[in-house]
């Protein structure tokens, strides 16, 4: 029974769900119904507390990282920027929340400069460990600070997942490092057309 459940779940995930007429599959992994709605209490890159209500009404992409991440994080953000640029006039209906899980180094000022380097659609967020843990647990991702070296530098282990929420804050799709901007753009357009 459990196996059948898993099979059905994977089938639903793969097929894009639903018992009606076959739908065109999404390019990204379909999360609809499998992850909770967008919800958090964090600090925005202007230093002000903020929750999810400030971001409803647009598509929201949620990604966890840190600014002392010179490789995977900027590559991911640059690729998302490329995808959003492909939306043309609809680009302003999309926002990317870059949640730093390294609040000790990522002050709002540092975060703001970092996200602004990628385009106007990026917002930096961070928070207390309790706030960050509440959010990462909600989306079943993890993070961990590495051991500092002799200079006090440390790396941060973080998820590569990009959660995509619709305008109502419902979790819809999952992207990751290496997903082609064309594929992401196609799915974002489809969400915007709903």
């Amino acid at each position: 029974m459990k196996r059948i459940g898993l099979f059905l779940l994977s089938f639903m995930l793969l097929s894009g769900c639903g018992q009606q007429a076959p739908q065109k599959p999404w390019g990204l992994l379909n999360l609809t119904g499998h992850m909770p709605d967008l919800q958090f209490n964090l600090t925005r890159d202007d230093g002000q507390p903020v929750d999810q209500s400030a971001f409803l009404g647009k598509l929201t992409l949620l990604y966890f990282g840190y600014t002392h991440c010179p490789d995977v994080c900027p590559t991911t953000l640059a690729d998302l920027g490329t995808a959003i640029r492909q939306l043309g006039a609809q680009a302003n209906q999309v926002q990317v929340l870059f949640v730093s899980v390294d609040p000790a180094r990522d002050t709002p000022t540092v975060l703001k400069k970092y996200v602004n380097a990628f385009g106007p659609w990026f917002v930096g967020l961070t928070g207390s460990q309790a706030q960050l843990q509440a959010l990462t647990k909600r989306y079943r991702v993890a993070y961990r600070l590495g051991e500092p070296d002799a200079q006090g530098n440390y790396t941060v282990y973080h998820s590569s997942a990009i959660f995509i929420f619709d305008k109502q804050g419902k979790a819809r799709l999952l992207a990751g490092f290496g997903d082609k901007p064309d594929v992401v753009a196609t799915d974002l357009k489809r969400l915007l057309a709903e």
Partner: protein
Amino acid sequence: MRKLLIAVALMSIVAPLYAADLVVSNAWVRLLPGDLPLAGYVHVVNSSPREITLVSASSPDFATVQFHQSMNHAGMEEMMHLAKISIPAGKSLDFAPGGYHLMLMGRKQPLAVGQHVALTLHFADGSKQTIQFTVRGATGK
């Protein structure tokens, strides 16, 4: 005649390779604001008949340059510091986003897009090679 032409063509391609042991292309650095660490990327071909081992890297523009490798284990990203990297004879190595990269830390002066950064690779046999990296913006453009 045709063989001769091919031979001449091959020589013209191969000859410059022996000027340096590593043939490098597409060397660039992704600029980030402030004093955040930067990643350097380059495609490297070992054109020599022996294995080359990179043991360190340095730049007059940075306090520290390290070899790093990003890895994804079950959806978790991590970055490993590598003490050395070996490239077998005739093989290439891609320092590229999401994999091997040069981590540049401690900027000695502000950098701007379009500038060049000199970075020297030090080999296990005591030799070294300096490469010019072009500074690109955060988006890689």
